[in-house]
């Protein structure tokens, strides 16, 4: 196993294209008219705490991430803040670093990227998705409590491990499949539902959106996502669900939030295995995008951890996150997409919260409350 001292690595100017295997590519000049081909965004938050040492510092762990990096821009000095996994992940999507309790199970006050996109672009719920493995807390990233935004502009958030687990499928099998309703019965049902309480409840649009998601869930259960097992299975499900969401809904924005790397607390080896499996799944996802001509020409990808991990192993031969080291506070951000430079490494300090502002800028949206900046030297 190659273990690299990141500081020495940086001091030696090792973050060059040649060191991490990125051969300089000639970027064909494109006219201004060709700019902003990006119509869709995918943000992968490796939100279990991942050090650069185990990614770009050990390329064998992440061959697919390396391949994607070849096609895009790498920011090896993305400043992160240890706000707890949930808080730091949320800050990527709000563009605001604010402390949150580690086990806080409540939504934040600041609007998220999803809300900016849905409100300003008038996107439907099916256009903005979050696929996560983070469990109950992570569903809170989907929208904020901000009075101008909130639930009506939230992302559809789906925790693959919660829904697509074998026990749940077994349970559904016990009850059988729901009976298809005839049109007559469906009309009667809708009339009855509409009569209950206020007329605003249960609009037709909501009912249609719910029915679409319901069908997706049933289909997904048939696709076998619940059969993904073993170390890092929750993350693998989040990636698999994301890939299928792309195929079915072709969303404008898709976030994937994975958490299994946090097994590092107890085992460094398990952590590395999770990283490797996630890299495989990331490769599968990116392949799916590249194989689809429309998606390939219009989809940009951001990959980053929410923060790193401690510089040294703990007494259990694991890695905690709390030492305030550069390994914890700086992560690597990878961006690839049709409008971005290729094979570029930007040594400037940026911040993980810059992803929110950059994503909004790409899609022509104003992230009013975000405090990040647009990423430098990103656009071709």
């Amino acid at each position, binding site marked *: 196993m190659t273990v690299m001292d990141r500081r020495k690595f940086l001091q030696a100017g090792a973050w060059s294209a040649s060191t991490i295997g990125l051969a300089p590519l000639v970027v064909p000049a494109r006219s201004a008219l060709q700019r902003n081909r990006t119509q869709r965004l995918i943000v992968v938050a490796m939100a279990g705490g991942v050090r650069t040492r185990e990614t770009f510092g050990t390329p064998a762990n992440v061959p697919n991430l390396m391949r994607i990096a070849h096609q895009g821009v790498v920011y090896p000095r993305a400043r992160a803040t240890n706000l707890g996994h949930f808080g730091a992940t949320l800050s990527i999507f709000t563009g605001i670093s604010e402390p949150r*309790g580690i086990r806080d199970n409540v939504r934040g006050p600041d609007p998220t990227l999803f809300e900016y996109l849905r409100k300003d672009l008038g996107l439907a719920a099916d256009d903005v998705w979050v696929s996560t493995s983070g469990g109950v807390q992570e569903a809170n990233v989907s929208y904020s409590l901000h009075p101008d935004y909130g639930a009506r502009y939230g992302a559809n958030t789906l925790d693959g491990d919660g829904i697509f687990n074998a026990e749940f499928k077994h349970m559904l099998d016990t009850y059988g499949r729901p009976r298809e309703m005839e049109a007559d019965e469906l009309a*009667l049902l809708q009339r009855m*539902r509409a009569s209950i309480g206020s007329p605003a409840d249960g609009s037709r649009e909501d009912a249609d959106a719910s029915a679409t998601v319901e069908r997706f869930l049933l289909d997904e259960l048939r696709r076998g996502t619940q059969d993904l097992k073993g170390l890092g299975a929750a993350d693998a499900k989040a990636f698999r669900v994301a890939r299928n969401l792309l195929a079915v809904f072709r969303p404008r924005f898709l976030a994937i939030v994975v958490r299994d790397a946090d097994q590092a607390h107890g085992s460094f080896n398990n952590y590395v295995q999770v990283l490797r499996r996630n890299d495989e799944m990331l490769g599968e996802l990116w392949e799916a995008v590249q194989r689809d001509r429309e998606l390939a020409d219009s989809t940009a990808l951001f990959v980053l951890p929410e923060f790193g991990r401690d510089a040294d192993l703990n007494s259990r031969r694991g890695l905690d996150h709390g030492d305030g080291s550069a390994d914890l506070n700086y992560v690597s951000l990878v961006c690839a997409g049709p409008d971005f430079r290729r094979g570029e490494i930007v040594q400037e300090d940026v911040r993980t919260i810059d992803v929110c502002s950059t994503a909004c800028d790409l899609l022509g949206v104003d992230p009013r409350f975000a405090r990040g900046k647009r990423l430098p030297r990103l656009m071709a």
Partner: protein
Amino acid sequence: MDFGSDLPQDPRPERTAVTPLDHGSLRCLFLDLFGRPPLAAERTAWIGRPRSELVASALCAREFWGNWLDEQLFYFLLIDNFRPTTESVLALPAQLAEGLIGAVEALHRICLSSSFDRRNPGPDTFVTVVMEQLLGLEVQRIARELEIGKKVYDGARGTFLGRSGSSQADVVHIAIEDRRAPRHLLKREYERWLRRVPSEQDLSAWVAALEQDPLAMRSILQGWFLSGAYAARLELRIPQPNRLFIRALFVDLLGRIPDDGEAERLRSALDGLANSGPLRALVARLILDSGKAPLPERASIPEPSVWIRELFERLLGRSPDAGELATFCEAFADPACRPATVMYAIVSHPEYQTW
């Protein structure tokens, strides 16, 4: 959840405590006390009796404290694989019901469990969670205390929150003995049940009572449930969390309480969606179409209006208004409408999913 300050001020305990329970208040009170609506026999037994009797009965019941424990475990996110299975935690509902142990001591045991340790691995996470969850502190404002706590966790002697300690267990002991522990517990529990922020004066009085008598939680809770503030809460409906929805759905459709495994799996699945509405609807349809829900045959419903009125009272805790009743009766007169269709229309409606 936003607990608005525009709510009416806490009135004195008043006569609503002895007002007979109606369908709405009975359903809400059961959901609050036991995390489920009443079963048919319980509905028959309690309707028309005073709230005070049901509260007094619940506070001595193992089921109430079992539900309380579940809420605490959920608060600490000790769920799924992190749910404690040790005897010291499993015994808590019985011991709390019998008055052998107090609520703060129950938290102490939860935080000493191996599940809590596994859920919060490493000194930084563990000490942070103890400070945040047990004491309600904002750790970033007292980073020095966190650093001391981490050293104590690792076995070094230090003065954490003003007391000396030298182990991981000491971190928990010290936090539990801190005056902010009962205060934070009482504050968050009051907000959970009463849906409003307690006054400083009341909070101080309850903390003092709990310090004087570790078993005083029961009398404090009795006061809360019989207060005018609780009567006001009954008028304030909010969406049910998924765990409550699942238990309500099982009782309402299947006439039984789900076992822990069923409830946990379904809760976990529903929690996987920020908007669990579509999956809630799917689960309700699956149960209704499974043949396992005891639904009446269409032919055995001689008076649809009576049956529909009873469904509204049972499932929504209120009678249908004239428009609702007319629409439902008209729909049910159509042969395409099954009894299951009527049930589904109600349980898939947002109003059913509030309490």
